[in-house]
């Protein structure tokens, strides 16, 4: 609310001619705030916009001794090589599929969790539930993969012991391409649903309690109240979160995938970011992988613009 007010004030003051001085004076008056802004701006300029200059190596044959400027131009050669590569479709599909499934499954789960927490009457119990779902977020990726290895081991893992006890034969979860996405997304959900639900819980607490009272008076059931009051109450937050998620659509848990990858599951675990790492950093093919990275970002940008536009049309909520 506040920010919009500030913005309208600024817009108003700009429209009135001869008042430019006042804006300047106000900036001087609030110089401490603007001074604080300097640091983030510098951060973005140096670490986010500065390196973009290096992106040109995607169109060059980068030779470190000659530097970025000195290397020769090759046009779209590296892009063509990637598009014609045997692995192109597989990489694209895996990257998109893992994200799409994550979005379809993981995204609603955290909303559901928030609604459940909100509906639980007992304060203690809802706090316990929140903590239990919240804590896994703080375990490091390496440890998570270690845990997965132990639990899913075909010889000593408890899950396979259970399967065997029930009369099934052990499954080599981490070495079967068909299981990779399930395990990856499933463990992601376990790790992050609590963390991601926080923002929805916060939003739910902002819903006017009078609405619930009124609905109760009218005889609305619990489910009805959730459906007609809670959910619409947090729709704007959901849309914003969705757009933010789309912003990272193409760069998924790179380290986790890399740690879980082996020759037997690579068919479904090879994604653009791990390919960039193994080819670019380990084999020193900077130009080629810069091109792949650029392609990756381009797809993401297009997706982001589309979703934002769609959201604005449908729900009148959007990032810009």
């Amino acid at each position: 609310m506040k920010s919009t007010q500030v913005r309208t004030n600024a817009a108003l003051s700009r429209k009135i001619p001869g008042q430019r001085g006042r804006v300047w004076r106000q900036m001087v008056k609030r110089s401490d705030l603007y001074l604080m802004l300097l640091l983030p701006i510098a951060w973005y300029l140096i670490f986010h916009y500065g390196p973009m200059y290096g992106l040109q190596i995607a169109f060059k044959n980068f030779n470190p001794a000659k530097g970025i400027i000195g290397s020769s131009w090759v046009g779209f050669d590296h892009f063509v090589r990637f598009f014609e590569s045997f692995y192109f479709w597989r990489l694209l599909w895996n990257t998109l599929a893992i994200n799409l499934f994550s979005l379809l499954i993981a995204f609603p789960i955290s909303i559901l969790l928030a609604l459940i927490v909100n509906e639980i009457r007992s304060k203690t119990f809802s706090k316990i539930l929140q903590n239990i779902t919240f804590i896994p977020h703080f375990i490091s990726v390496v440890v998570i993969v270690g845990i997965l290895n132990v639990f899913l081991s075909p010889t000593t893992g408890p899950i396979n012991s259970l399967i065997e006890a029930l009369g099934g034969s052990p499954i080599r979860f981490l070495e079967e391409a068909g299981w990779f996405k399930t395990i990856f997304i499933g463990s992601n959900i376990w790790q992050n649903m609590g963390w991601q639900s926080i923002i929805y819980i916060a939003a739910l607490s902002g819903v006017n309690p009078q609405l619930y009272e009124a609905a109760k008076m009218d005889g609305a059931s619990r489910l009805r109240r959730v459906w007609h009051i809670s959910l619409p109450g947090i729709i704007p937050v959901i849309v914003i979160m969705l757009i933010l998620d789309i912003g990272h659509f193409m760069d998924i848990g790179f380290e986790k995938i890399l740690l879980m990858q082996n020759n037997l599951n690579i068919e479904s675990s090879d994604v653009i970011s791990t390919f960039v790492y193994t080819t670019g950093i380990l084999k020193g093919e900077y130009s080629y992988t810069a091109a792949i990275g650029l392609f990756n970002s381009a797809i993401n940008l297009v997706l982001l613009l589309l979703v934002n536009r769609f959201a604005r049309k449908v729900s009148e909520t959007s990032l810009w």
Partner: protein
Amino acid sequence: MSKHWARGALSTALISALLLAGCGSNSEKGAESKNTEGSSETTVSASGFPLTKDSITLKMFTRIAPVNGAFKDMPVFQDYEKMSNVHVEFTEAPTDGFQEKKNLLFASNELPDAFYRSGISQLEATRYGAAGQLIPLEDLIEKYAPNLKKLMEEYPEIRSGITTPEGHIYAIPGIVTLDAARTDKKWINQAWLKKLNMDIPVTTDDLYNVLVAFRDKDPNGNGKKDELPMTARAPVPGQGLPIVNMMSGSFGLDQQLGYNINLVNDKVEIWMGNDRNKEMLQYLNKLYKEKLLDPDMFSQKEADYLAKQSSGNTGFFFDQTNNVFMPIKDQYTGIAPFKGPHGDQMQSQGAPIARDFGAFAITSANKNPELTMRWIDYFYSDEGSTMLRFGREGENYEMKDGIPYYTEAFLASGDQGKITPYAGGGAPHLISDKVASFINPPQVQEAQDKLTPFMPKVRYASPMFDENTAQEVNVLRNDIDKYYEEQSTKFIAGALSFDKWDEFQSTLKKMKIDKLQDLYQQAYDKMKK
């Protein structure tokens, strides 16, 4: 929300590389002028020690293996500093992530004076040599490296293995004249064989029968079916499948030119799509399916593999020495390669004499290349190699019949890997029978004697391509090697049926394996000339 870190990791790595590279462009001028000058700042004495009158410091980038201690604490570098008057400041990068750090140094042009134990590949040597980041060493070797030069004259294949088509040497290798240090032995559990009253397997069928007996007949006598019949190292992406390299000789598949190549009447043949390869994979698949081959083979860590060796509960495995299973060494014996279904009996896995390509390289940032060359050359002599591998006489080792042995007291301390950079592999020096008492004890020599008759007469190293060809080979191999490793793993593990063999072959064709074969043929022809 949760993906910030994931995104951060990669972009930070690339971005910092790019940023640094941007700054790097101004040092380009320096590199060129140094190359043309060719004169050094410090005077180098022509022979003998110290190497220089005024003490000097060289900066080197090196890999440090898990078994090593800090390089500056190693007696070899402390003593050699006193001898040579050269102080070396090592930047140590652990084996995990070493490749990444090395590449970032090159990409950012923030070069040390030299790369020590650097595992520079042929492609990297050509690429960074052509870029002027590594300097050509052939003249320096001629003038300042008498020991290395002597070795290169004695074994001409060293020179051809490290010289680019343009005639430059950008990196010098670790040289291994000792046969036993260039191949993995085949170790079988003779205690189990004796218990089951079985002979040492001679053919691949014998091996199968022995492994079945290992699995079913409880050779360790504990009443449980807990024996592991056979295991092998886990694959490292881009470096082939160890199990394939170990068994390919029995199916008539050689490993020439550092690749999956057979040489038939001077014709280069890449055998990955060959029916013999299919037969081998089918055989391995049979072992895997029947739980004769370690089911964890494709995902286990190096430490797991070594633990299996020393547990005494493994029937058959491969390793260069018996160091790992020393306490139970009598349980095992080295055997000859198996005779395959077509009568092939070959030990195809084995490294060339210039075993560790790119173990040492001098960069354009080095102001004293002559001195650096003299510094490294000492380790290509028996004396220098002894110092590097054994540390201080009396304290760490003693001489018996002119050959150094670690003292009992020192061995008992278990610090062997901490005093020498050779432990962990890839150090630039000479490994001959004179300095290998530890890695080549009688049991290993015997095991090697079983293999030697079946090794090819000449083992051609990976050829050096010129810059453009190297790039082309690299592009082709990037896809092909990845595909071969993935599909072979799946064939062995049964995740892919052999009905798909034709598809596998046609995909290899699509990936232009014929073109790759041509390039290797040309390189081989040039090498023969």
